[in-house]
């Protein structure tokens, strides 16, 4: 009963967090601010997952995105220092055109998205750990193995790409 009152409040807070952090990533002055706002956006998306009841996916989101990908991007930022330049030079030549194209499509899609409704039989579904684990390891076992091979290939590729040529 009280949950029905509290849930929209959390949803509104998380939405504000996600949208403002996303806008901050695109518009921020310094690249480290962009990286940390991106991490904040990831945390808010994890909050959205918890609100939907998918707590295992939320834990994985924080573990992988905030814990690993953000650190990777911060490493990348630190190893590529650049000359400071004027703020206007951050944006490409086609910025006005991109804005004109993207904004109307975004508004249209967002308004269209509101027409989706819950399936009529969707009740409280409970924890998502067991169905998720069963699906991944039983129904989708082969894609799981392919994903692990992909990770191995990516790891080897990344190591080879950044190896210096020993003179």
């Amino acid at each position, binding site marked *: 009963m009280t949950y029905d009152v509290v849930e929209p409040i959390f949803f509104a807070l998380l939405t504000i967090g996600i949208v403002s952090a996303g806008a901050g990533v695109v518009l921020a002055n310094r690249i480290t601010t962009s990286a940390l706002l991106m991490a904040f956006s990831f945390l808010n998306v994890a909050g959205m997952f918890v609100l939907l009841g998918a707590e295992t996916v939320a834990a994985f989101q924080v573990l992988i995105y905030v814990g690993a990908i953000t*650190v990777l991007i911060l490493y990348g930022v630190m190893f590529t220092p650049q000359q400071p330049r004027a703020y206007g030079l951050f944006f490409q030549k086609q910025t006005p055109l991109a804005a004109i194209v993207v904004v109307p499509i975004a508004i249209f899609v967002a308004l269209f998205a509101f027409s989706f409704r819950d399936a009529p039989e969707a009740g409280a579904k409970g924890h998502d750990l067991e169905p998720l684990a069963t699906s991944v390891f039983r129904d989708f076992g082969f894609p799981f193995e392919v994903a692990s091979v992909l990770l191995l290939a990516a790891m080897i590729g990344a190591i080879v790409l950044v190896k210096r040529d020993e003179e």
Partner: protein
Amino acid sequence: MPEGPFGLDPVIWAPLRLIIAVLLAVGLVFNGALAQIYLERKIQAIIQDRIGPLHTGPWGLLQTFADAIKLLGKEDIRARLTDKWFFLAAPSIVFSPMIASFVVVPFAPGIVGANLNIGLLYLTTLGSMTVLGIVIAGWASNNKYSLIGGLRSAGQLISYEVPQILSLVTVVLLVGTLSMVGIAESQPDWRINFLILPLAFVTYFIAGLAETNRNPFDLPEAESELVAGFLTEYSGMRWAIFFLAEYGEVTVVSAIATTLWFGAWHGPLTDRLPLLGVIWFTLKTYFFVLVFMWIRATLPRLRIDQLMSLCWKVLIPLTLTNLMVTSVLLLAYPSSRIPVAIANWILLGLFGLAVPFFQRRRLASLRERLRAAAA
């Protein structure tokens, strides 16, 4: 919605309960840190054949308060070229996940903050958020040594997460649930998981030492190496927060080890008086904290490349083998745990014998090379 005590309205009780839980966790961490700071200095002193703090209070018991008063009184210096908001935020980013970990730790049969069904996954997730805080601390200090210390520490933490998680997964395979309360309840009486999976405990302990930046893996904060690594520019209360975060993390790692391998609250007389479980849990956790301190006083520090090769070349193959053997044996003999136990103890014995064997071979070959070079 649970009704509060004395018939409190659930709407008031739920946030009040959260606030009480947070205050309890903070109190626990601070008091634990008070005890641990004193214990660390006394134990290091005793092992190093000296006396340690003696004059502040009886047996030096008030030393921690003296330290705290000194830290609070220090000037809050912040170098001008540091990034202001990141510099100020970094200690909080390192401290918060550690506090949030105490919510799933089972102290006694009824006393747990929240019985999450993904309790262990939640703890692992929080452990990986600490890395972000350390990278930010190293970068925001605008100091070459801090940056190198921060990046090295981040690399160390990320690398050692893998054996840590693999050890935890081995126990979860055996127990069948990720919930901390469930794991604690699956070890009645003397049938603790340590008897079945000792190698997982050993690898978890070593990885936990590295995760908390403790000796012998404390290169990132070593005073003799990179000044103080990523902590160089932090002084006074800000340094104290990092310090508290480290001790709190040591407590969390010990608490996880206690829950998973030593039957969290189980001990004599717990079924009669459930609250007694808190005492057993605290005793077991502090035993492991003392082992952390014992190791710190005894072992020398590892270099960064030795540290990394220990993780990737020794611990990860070991934990992977352990996981493979455990899962195969659990599938082959679903009803009995004895084959898994036997295999694990054999692997532990092999690991224990392999270490001196390989070290002796390396020493011999090193001596050979030195002799050949001198000749």
